[in-house]
């Protein structure tokens, strides 16, 4: 489904990723670990289309993901460190804008989904005073509500309370059974233990299976 070939990325002449190759098949969960600053987030951001590589190919369903007007990005969901929301928009407006950007519409059962992630009472509240945990809940909301084939998740469990963490794990398994793939960057190996994820580590600027 996803193919990354000969990927190379540097920041200020400092090479971060070099000759990185890997594939993600349908229904696979890839767990990427590695020390701080080795390029885990950079790799996810390149696949998500936020950063450009210096060299290399990234394709999904055999279609180039790095082109300018890339409609294939609709298959990808990016869960980053930052919530990527507008603080002066309400939860509802933010989710509506997010879905419109992906040519999707708000589902009829939006209130039910908001209730699941414990955000129904905040539906019409602006997001400017949200805590990190609330931002992560908002990411969880996007994970549940959006239609995607590959989720790129950067430390998805950090900041979530136990209840939300359990819901996320349940949803990950649910999505995996639906044939969706995920790349999860996390230092928390114990949480991911039960997901039968393929384990990779970024070492020497490349991706190594462990």
């Amino acid at each position, binding site marked *: 489904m996803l193919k990354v070939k000969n990927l190379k990325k540097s920041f200020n002449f400092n090479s971060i990723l070099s000759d990185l190759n890997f594939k993600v098949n349908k229904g696979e969960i890839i767990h990427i670990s590695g020390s701080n600053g080795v390029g885990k987030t950079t790799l996810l951001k390149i696949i998500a289309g*936020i950063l450009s590589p210096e060299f290399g190919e990234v394709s999904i369903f055999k279609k180039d993901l790095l082109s300018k007007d890339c409609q294939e*990005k609709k298959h*990808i969901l990016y869960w980053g460190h930052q919530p*990527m929301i507008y*603080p002066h*928009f309400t939860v509802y407006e933010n989710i509506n804008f997010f879905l419109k*950007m992906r040519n999707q519409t708000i589902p009829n059962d939006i209130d039910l989904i908001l209730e699941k992630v414990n955000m129904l009472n905040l539906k019409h509240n602006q997001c400017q005073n949200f805590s990190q945990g609330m931002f992560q809940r908002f990411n969880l909301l996007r994970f549940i509500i959006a239609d995607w084939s590959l989720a790129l998740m950067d430390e998805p469990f950090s900041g979530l309370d136990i209840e939300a963490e359990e819901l996320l794990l349940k949803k990950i398994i649910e999505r995996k059974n639906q044939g969706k793939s995920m790349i999860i960057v996390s230092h928390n190996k114990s949480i991911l233990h039960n997901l039968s994820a393929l384990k990779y580590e970024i070492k020497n600027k490349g991706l190594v299976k462990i």
Partner: protein
Amino acid sequence: MLNTLIFKELKLEFRTKETMLSMFLLGIILSFLFSISIENVKQEFVIVYFWIIIFMISSLGLYRSYQNEKNLDSFNLMLSSPVDPSIIFISKVVSFFIQIFIVQIFLFPIFILFFKLNLTISYEVVFLTLVTNWYISSLGNIIGGITLRSNRNEMIIPILLFPFSAPILLAIIRATEGVIGNYSFYDFSNWIFIIITSSIVVFILGIWAYYDIIKE
């Protein structure tokens, strides 16, 4: 998609009024300072002051607009979505063009009051103002895109905006002088041509290059 993005930009601005209000207040302060520092000022100098103020407040507005995109990584949401970056650029140009025109509508009467002017606004002046606003908005958003990956956008925007705007500033001043002074059209038509051409060229350049500008 374009409508969604323009609506998002304007809705955010009209909700907070941060950008337009700060542009308007800075415009009043600068108008007041210019008006008290020079007495019995000639009409052609007043046009210069007005446009210098517009360029200065635009730089502030653009800074605030892109700062809002950097907060909480909001801009990356658009980058990671299946949206053509050219559409993002057009939406930003249109929304800033609307904002700057609204600020001008409120600022101009105050400016007239401070400088004790007796001016009648013609359709030609409004047209020239709109075309120049389009230029400022297009160029400003190209520069704003450059600053997205920088931590020094409060410095970079004015440093880049003013030099690239100098020919247009000169052109709009000459063209407005010509219109207000009832000169023969052939005396200032070249200036109008420069303004219109530059606005079109910068806008097309932005559509073409925005993707490369915003990518890190």
